[in-house]
């Protein structure tokens, strides 16, 4: 049905967007869980710094985030050069780079949802697990993560939905390359800047809107489902 409704170009753009957002979530989810876990613990030295790092993309202009990524991970950047020389991996100007930039921008949303879920867990349960011989690492896997599962799921879906709309960081770090890094917002921007492509821009905007609404509804639905399962 989607194929019948969309043109080949639109399908290509949607597919790039879904791929970029999907990979962004997969990249950042494990790191977001670790950050959220650390931030939900009782206070420890360096926690404030960790919190600032996690939330920085939320307050910085996306273009600035993209620029900083370019400085660090560009082909001539210290980390980008090392990645290229050691593993042959280039992030700047590639779909992988678009996913990376999207992951960085969606990171605070994910950390926040997971952290709230972890903090809502009854700390007494971890004490109960400790006296049943569960080590801290064991308690993380066997209790913290399963109990925070609805938050993890919601964080991932919200980050995915937000990732579909990421613009500034992606265009700065990965540029707007058709069929490679051109996601929905980049394509809308390109169409708006091309005379006679207003209709294309409008259709892409509608696709973008529907994708965002579906993403948010899915997040809500998944969270309810996970919570119901958790509570039996």
């Amino acid at each position, binding site marked *: 049905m989607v194929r019948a409704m969309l043109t080949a170009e639109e399908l290509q753009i949607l597919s790039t967007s879904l791929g970029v957002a999907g990979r962004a979530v997969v990249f950042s989810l494990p790191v977001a869980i670790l950050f959220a876990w650390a931030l939900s613990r009782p206070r420890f030295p360096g926690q404030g710094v960790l919190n600032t790092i996690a939330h920085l993309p939320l307050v910085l202009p996306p273009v600035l985030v993209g620029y900083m990524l370019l400085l660090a991970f560009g082909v001539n950047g210290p980390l980008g050069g090392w990645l290229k020389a050691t593993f042959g991996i280039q992030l700047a100007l590639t779909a992988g780079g678009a996913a990376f930039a999207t992951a960085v921008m969606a990171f605070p949303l994910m950390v926040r949802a997971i952290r709230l879920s972890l903090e809502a867990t009854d700390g007494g349960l971890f004490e109960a*697990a400790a006296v049943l011989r569960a080590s801290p690492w064991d308690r993380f896997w066997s209790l913290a993560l399963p109990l925070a599962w609805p938050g993890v799921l919601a964080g991932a879906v919200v980050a995915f939905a937000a990732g579909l709309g990421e613009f500034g960081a992606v265009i700065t770090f990965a540029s707007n390359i058709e069929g490679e890094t051109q996601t929905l917002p980049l394509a809308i921007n390109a169409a708006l800047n091309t005379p006679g492509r207003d209709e294309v821009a409008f259709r892409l905007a509608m696709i973008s809107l529907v994708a965002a609404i579906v993403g948010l509804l899915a997040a809500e639905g998944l969270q309810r489902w996970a919570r119901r399962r958790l509570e*039996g």
Partner: protein
Amino acid sequence: MSLDLRGAVVRRGGFRLSAELSIPTEGITVVFGPSGAGKSMMLSAIAGLHRLAAGSVTFNGRVLEDVDRQQRVAAHERAIGLVFQDARLFPHLTVRGNLHYAEHRRPAARNAPITLEISRLLEFEDLLDRPVKNLSGGERSRVALARAIVSAPELLLLDEPFAALDGRRRRDFARFLKEYGRDMGVPIIVVTHLIDEAAELANHVVAMRAGRVVCSGQPAEIMTRPEFAALLDPRDRGAWVQGAAGYAPGDGVWVRADSVLLASAEPRGISARNVWPGEVAGILREPDGAILVSLDTAKGYILSRITPEALVDLKLEEGGKAWAIVKAHAL
């Protein structure tokens, strides 16, 4: 063999617990005291859930924590089971899942019942596949106890374990605990503020008030002391008696002064199963006007609260003879 707290200090939220104590690691030790005495905090410190601010805890010679020597064994490495007052069952698991959680983490060499055995013993086999949120308070208590036992602890701590149980379950639970401790050789420490539970379970008593240990020792010795009586609500005043009618010879029970009748002559043809002759050791007028009579019997000192009129009618005086009468069902 003992559990020793030497100069142990725990501070939490403005409350200070200070304990100097040696508990024998056999049988059941009851930690008794009013709410806010620091009983639960002491259990948490023994289990390793609260850090000591000073002092040490050793269990059968093994140092669990020593602040001066900067030694500390983490809670999950202490092999000490703790049954919390609020059960703390894992909500994302079924009853079986909760028990398996403990079973899969115990050392292979430790001998203890497995999930199915313990669920039969504690009569909740039919609940095994239920989510824990569907359990009643009493069922949660039994599952929490079972989970702790399945973890094969070397020492079992219970915090107010009877709070959610009704009368019959309470009696079964107490009997089960005694048998488990004896058969498996696991020492048990039970925290309670209920004198009946304390008297029924204790092989050893630790009395606490305001973060300090008031006294500790055998029930027959400790529960007759004035400092122990001072911890009791006036309506709970009474005596610890061993081998009352309806109880095994070694089992203790708390006989409240309010449930003891006195007779000045040997009673005949009455239904009461407990009739203990004795000598009047003391007569005390209480602030509310009631008379507290202490009778020295073969069962120990028995207290009876009577009215001033009854004292006059019975012509009781110190050194005189009297009989204490208690219905078995009143215990």
